[in-house]
């Protein structure tokens, strides 16, 4: 699946101050029964966004203006910890989120973001706290992947790190599977030939067939 390319993003940042917002909060498990990856936006943060009678919870920040359409999440540490469910990322994408800024991320979640065209930005704790403190009164950010910067309402600017190859993949919307097949087919075949010699038991069932 080709992810949507990511170049620049301008928009409101919605503050979710809590640390350890896990994938069960982002996408409750009972919706994992849905096998499609499109249309999951309505389930993002479902149990916080909606009361048990399916009415919107007006106290939840993402139900309030100007955050309802915010393309950027500003979150506490360890965002997306917990399960590997990629539905958490697809739900955020469906909800309109294209970038998440946090002091740290759950590892599998972070990898899933990059594969789906969401840019996870790690900034130092004190900067995230400072942004969180200002975000409630409405904070517009400009994220530029090319220059690796987050600019705040044109007054301050923060640099972030991203490995160069990941950056290129995001900017171009590359599909990882296609890339491996196109570029590394010979290496994979050579590896298999060597492993078959050294650890033949890993291939025995295939010979039987």
């Amino acid at each position, binding site marked *: 699946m080709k992810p949507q390319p990511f170049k620049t993003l301008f928009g409101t940042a919605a503050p979710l101050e809590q640390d350890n917002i896990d994938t*069960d909060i982002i996408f409750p498990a009972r919706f994992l*029964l849905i096998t499609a*990856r499109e249309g999951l936006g309505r389930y993002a943060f479902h149990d916080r966004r909606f009361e048990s009678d399916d009415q919107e919870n007006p106290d939840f920040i993402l139900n309030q203006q100007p955050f309802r359409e915010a393309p950027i999440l500003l979150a506490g540490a360890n965002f997306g910890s917990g399960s590997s469910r990629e539905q958490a990322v697809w739900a955020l994408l469906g909800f309109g989120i294209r970038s998440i800024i946090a002091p*740290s991320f759950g590892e599998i979640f972070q990898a899933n973001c990059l594969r789906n065209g969401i840019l996870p930005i790690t900034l130092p704790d004190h900067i995230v706290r400072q942004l969180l403190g200002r975000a409630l009164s409405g904070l517009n950010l400009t994220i530029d992947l090319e220059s690796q910067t987050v600019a705040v309402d044109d007054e301050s600017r923060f640099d972030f*790190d991203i*490995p160069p*190859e990941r950056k290129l993949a995001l900017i171009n919307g590359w599909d990882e599977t296609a890339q491996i097949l196109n570029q590394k087919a010979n290496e994979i075949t050579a590896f298999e030939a060597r492993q078959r010699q050294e650890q033949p038991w*890993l291939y025995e069932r295939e010979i039987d067939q």
Partner: protein
Amino acid sequence: MFPITNQQRQNRDPRCVSEDLKVAGAKTLYEKLWDSHRVCDLADDEALIYIDRHLVHEVSSPQAFAALRASERQLRRPLTHYAVADHAVPTRNRTDAIEDPLARAQVAELEDNVADFHVPYAALQGADQGIVHVIGPESGFTLPGTTIVCGDSHTTTHGAFGALAFGIGASECGTVMATQCLRQKKALTMLVQLSGIASRHVTAKDIALALIARIGTNGAAGYAVEYAGPVVSAMSMAERMTLCNLTIEAGSRVGLIAPDETTLAFVKGRRLAPQGPSWDRAASYWLSLLTDASAEYDSIVELDLDRIEPQVTWGTSPDQTVSIAQAIPDPTAIADTSARRQAETALDYMGLKAGTPLEGTVISHVFIGSCTNGRIEDLRAAAAVAAGRSVASDVTAIVVPGSGATRLQAEAEGLDRIFSEAGFQWRHPGCSMCVAMNDDRLEPGDRCASTSNRNFEGRQGAGGRTHLMSPAMAAAAAITGYLTDVRKIAE
């Protein structure tokens, strides 16, 4: 991804020598597994890693199969995958069609996919069905020295065999199916050295929870963790699997234990394990997968088991754990503002009061099962407590074996009768109330003593409250109707 932060580099244990001083050629177990599966190096300090085994389940695979179809790709090596429906399947009965239309469709989709792509499948009605992380080892699909992935974060479980096993997302599942490879960044290494002697009723579950409480849910992020020490060598494979299973709750995708005679004894003779001369060759290779004596870790954590008592979580994160005899922590005593706020939120959600004893907290449900504690040894431990006693009148208690083979074994030992006579419900295998995707779930306000691995908000059902603990502790809570120190009733 890019797991190693500069902060972590600076935080390295001072006893660990720096990268350039590492003894040339000496490798940790993790490094041996990494090197033996490196197809080639890639940009960004990443490598293309060969994947030997992929466990497939109904929840994280439909999108991957759909992507294969859309791009007209095939599976590169169909027999290196093993599929099962475990997450959303009902546990009350296996003869009728699945009632929930969504779950029924999801299982049907998996069955279509495995037929179309020729993937070996443990059928829902068959004896091989069970939780991915239980049937992998049971069938011999899980082998030492291999790389194993699954679209489930508790894939760390298989590290107990000295396999490099980690959880991946659904897109990565599709990449593995088509290429048999994944792009990965090498992790730092952490040694968790267990010393001392665990007292009776202090299990691998308690050790893991105590470790997570100590280092935090992000404490091992970016590291591949290896467990070692005489206690680990003396552990059964079931205990080792529990320990490695919970490594993800400390933020690490990889938990490892070096293969030894205990490992070989478990694997030998399993349906998919090598046989005859192949076995001998494999076994001697597996026993070579030890961390070299002069190899260095990037971090070392020591845990003294002499001080550990049965553990119970009080909050909504696995590191919010105390000993059963301790009081519920007081958030105002926590210096760090963010941790304090989190503790307050957790207590509020859990409906608990700071400073009151955890023991005696009234529960409504008990869940014994999951890939953490759903093996035969776990059921035996719970049954030993349940035997001759009765579940408290207001408690609903279910026992969900981790696999069909576990269920049959338990029945052969008469454990099902012990549970049934005590008032526990005896179920069919699956993830059940670990993830609450089927009809086994809590209602808002229900409180559950659970042997699973996550006490997140809503994990066992929206509004449900989860306390994690060992199987014997969960059984004890079922009997008294409140959180109980098993040592008080089982001596």
